[in-house]
C-alpha cells in the first residue's frame, strides 16, 4: 500500500516535470531570462514563488524552463549509451572470440578511468555545450550496457527456445532479431530507466562546472552553480533547482524500480 502511494507520487512528479519540459509556457508566465534589476534577490513570495536571482529573474520560471535541457541531457545520454552499448554487447557475444576480446578489453579500459575525469577530457577536446555533455556521459555509461547485453545474449543463445528455433529451420539472423535481441533487451530497459537519473545528475554536475549549456540558458546544474555565491543571502537561488534535480532523480528511480518488479 505504501509502495503504491510512493509510485503514485513519483509518477505525478514525473508527469509535472515532463509537462514543464514539453510546454513550459503552460506552467509559468514570462520568459526565463526576463531580468528586473529592481526585484533582484527577493525571497519567495506570491509574485515570485521561488524568489528571484541576482539579476531579478524569476527562479520558478527558470526552474520550469530548465526542465527541458536537464531532462534532454539525461535521456539523450542514456539513449545514446543504450544504443552504442547494445551494438557493442551483441558484437562481443556473437562476433567470435577475437572480437569479444577486443571489445571487452576496450570496455574495461573505459570502465577503469574515473568517470568525471573522462567526461572532463571529452569536453576539453570538444568544447562545452549540451550535445557534448551528452556525448561525454554516453561514453562512460555505454560500457555497462555493453557488458549486460553481452552476458544476456550469451545466456539466451543457449536457451531452449533458441535451440527450438534452430531446429525449426530459422536462419541465424532471424533468430537473433526475433528471439535473442528482444529477450536481452528487457532487463536492459529496466537498467536504463534507473540510469536516466544517474545520467541526469552527471549532466547537472558538468553544467555546475560550467561545461554544459552556457548562460543565460536556464539549466538546473548551471543555476545551482550561479546560486552558489549568494547562498548565505539568497538560499532560494540554489535550493530550488537542487530540489528539482533531487525530486526528478528520486521519481525516476522509484518508477524504474516499480517497473523492474513488474517485469520480474
Amino acid at each position: 500500500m505504501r509502495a503504491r502511494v510512493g509510485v503514485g507520487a513519483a509518477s505525478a512528479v514525473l508527469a509535472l516535470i515532463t509537462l514543464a519540459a514539453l510546454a513550459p509556457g503552460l506552467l509559468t508566465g514570462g520568459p526565463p531570462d526576463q531580468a528586473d534589476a529592481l526585484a533582484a534577490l527577493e525571497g519567495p513570495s506570491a509574485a515570485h514563488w521561488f524568489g528571484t536571482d541576482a539579476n531579478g529573474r524569476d527562479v520558478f520560471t527558470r526552474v520550469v524552463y530548465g526542465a527541458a535541457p536537464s531532462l534532454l541531457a539525461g535521456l539523450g545520454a542514456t539513449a545514446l549509451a543504450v544504443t552504442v552499448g547494445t551494438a557493442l554487447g551483441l558484437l562481443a557475444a556473437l562476433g567470435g572470440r577475437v572480437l569479444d576480446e577486443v571489445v571487452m578489453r576496450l570496455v574495461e579500459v573505459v570502465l577503469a578511468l574515473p568517470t568525471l575525469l573522462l567526461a572532463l577530457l571529452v569536453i576539453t577536446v570538444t568544447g562545452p555545450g549540451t550535445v557534448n555533455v551528452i556525448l561525454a556521459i554516453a561514453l562512460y555509461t555505454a560500457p555497462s550496457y555493453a557488458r549486460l547485453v553481452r552476458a544476456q545474449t550469451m545466456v539466451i543463445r543457449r536457451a531452449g527456445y533458441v535451440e527450438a528455433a534452430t531446429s525449426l529451420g530459422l536462419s541465424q539472423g532471424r533468430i537473433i532479431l526475433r528471439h535473442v535481441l528482444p529477450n536481452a533487451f528487457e532487463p536492459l530497459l529496466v537498467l536504463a530507466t534507473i540510469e536516466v537519473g544517474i545520467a541526469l545528475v552527471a549532466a547537472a554536475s558538468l553544467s555546475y562546472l560550467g561545461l554544459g549549456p552556457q548562460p543565460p540558458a536556464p539549466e538546473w546544474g548551471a543555476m545551482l552553480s550561479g546560486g552558489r555565491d549568494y547562498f548565505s543571502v539568497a538560499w532560494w537561488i540554489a535550493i530550488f533547482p537542487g530540489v528539482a534535480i533531487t525530486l526528478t532523480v528520486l521519481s525516476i528511480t522509484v518508477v524504474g524500480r516499480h517497473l523492474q518488479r513488474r517485469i520480474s
Partner: protein
Amino acid sequence: MSVPVVEVADLHVSFGPVAAVRGVSLAVHPGECVALVGESGSGKSVTARTLLGLTGEQAEVSATRLRIEGLDASGFSERQWRSVRGRRIGFVLQDALVSLDSLRPVGKEIAETLRLHRAVPRDAVRGRVLELLTEVGVPEPERRARQYPHELSGGLRQRALIASAIACHPRLLIADEPTTALDVTVQAQILRLLGERKRAGTALLLISHDLAVVAELADRILVMKDGVVVESGPAQRVLREPEHPYTRGLLAAIPTAAAKGARLSDPAAPPLRRAPAGEVVIEARDLARSFRGHRAVDGVSFELRAGETLGIVGESGSGKTTTARLVLGLLAPDRGSVAIDGQPWAGLTPRRRRELRRHIQVVYQDPLSSFDPRFTVRRILAEALDVGGRPRGEAVRLLEQVGLDAGVLDRRPLRLSGGQRQRVAIARALAPRPRVIVCDEPVSALDVSIQAQVLDLLAELQAELGVAYLFISHHLGVVQHVSDRVLVMKDGRVVESGDVHQVLTAPTAAYTRELLAAVPQLDTTASLVRRAS
C-alpha cells in the same frame, strides 16, 4: 496398538480463497509407511508441510486434532516447531541440489543439524557425520563430507539429504517425492534405504505422484485429489481392488507392457490400428562424439522407418540426449554420419541445412523453456507454420489436432498447464509436416494422468500422419509402451538393441537386466516378495 508418531484429524488448509486441503485425516505409527499419492495440486505436499509447521504465514490451518508423539501441536509456537523439525520429524525433499546449501560442504550441512539440536557432544559431531554418511551408503564418507552438493551425483546428494534428515534419530521421516529426479537404479537404492529406516522402527510418510514407487514401501495408501482423500486403505487393497474411479484411472494410466497399444487415458476405447513401417527416414551410422576427452556417444548406429517408433533408454549421462542432438544436426559428430530422408547433414550449405531441418522436429522435456517467453501460442505456431510454408490460419487446425481449442491462441506458455504446454510443443513440431519427431523425455515432467493423455496423443498422431518417433526416455515403462524397437544405452554405447518386447522381456545384456530389476513394480505380489527378501 502403539501411539502414532503423528496424528491429524479433519485438517483444513487454505491460502486466501483457495482451499488446498479439505478434511484430511491420517496417522503414522512407528515402523509403518503411509503413502500420500496424488497429482500436482492435490494438496499432498501442503498436508506434509503442515506436520512440520511449514505452511507459511498466509495459510489458514485448522484441525480437530494435530498431535506429534502424543503432544498437542495445534498451538505450537515457531520456537516449538523448530524443536520438532529435524529432531522429532525429519524432512527429505525432492531435489537435493536445491535443498542442500550450495556454498557448504555436505558434511557441514549434516553437522549443523546435530549441533542445533545438541544431539551429540561437540567433539563427537565429526565422527557422527561420517557414521551417518556410511549408514546411508555413501562410499568414501571422509572425502564426500568435504565436497559441495554440485560435486556429488543426484543419488549421493539424495543420500546426504537423508543423512541430514535422520541425524537426530527422528521418529518420523517425511519424504516428499524423494526419487522423482533420479534414475531408476538410483531410485531403487534410495527406496531400499528408506525401507531400512522403516524396518529400524522409523515411521515413514512417503509422498509421491507415482503409485508404482510407493507400492514398494507403503503399508497404507491415501489417494488425494483436489485437497480431499478420495480413497485410503491397506496398500494391497488400494492397488489391487481400487474402489474410487480416480484411483482406477491413475492405475490404468501407468504405461506397462500389458497396456501396449491400448489408450492409457481411456482403457475402454478400442486400440489404435498401426500403419506398417515405411521407408527409412533416419539412418545413423557409427556415431561418435566426445566432449573434452569424455566420450559422450561412441559407435551408435540405427535406422528408423516412417510410421515407426524407436525408443532410446538409458540413465543420465548415457548419451541419449547427445545422440538426439547429433540426429537433429545441432551437433556435428566426430565420426560417423546421420542421414535424414537419405540426405546426410555433413557437407550441406547453411540454406540446405535449414531446409532439411523441416523434416525432423523435436519435442523437449521442458516445453516452457523451449518457448520464447514473450511469444503467445499464436506467434509460436505462426513461426513454425511459416517455416513449413503453410498459411498461419492453420494454427487452429493444428491445435485441434493436439486436442486444444482456439481459446489458448492468445495466451503465453507461462499461463498454460504442463499438459497444455506439451500439446502446444507437439503442435509446433507438427507444423512443418516433418517425417520424424525426436521426443526427448517428452512426458518426464508430467503427472501420470497427463502423461497418459500425451502418450495417447502421440500414438494417435502417428496412426493418422505416419510420422516416425525417436523416443528418448529414462522410463522403461513409457518406452515399452510406445516403442516398436529399442536401444539400451550406457556410457555412450548401445549395450542392447532389438524388438522392444524381446529386449525388455528376455534381455541378454547384464545392464538391461539391472535396469529392469530396478523398475518399481505395481504388481504387489512381486513387491511383497522383494520386501520380504
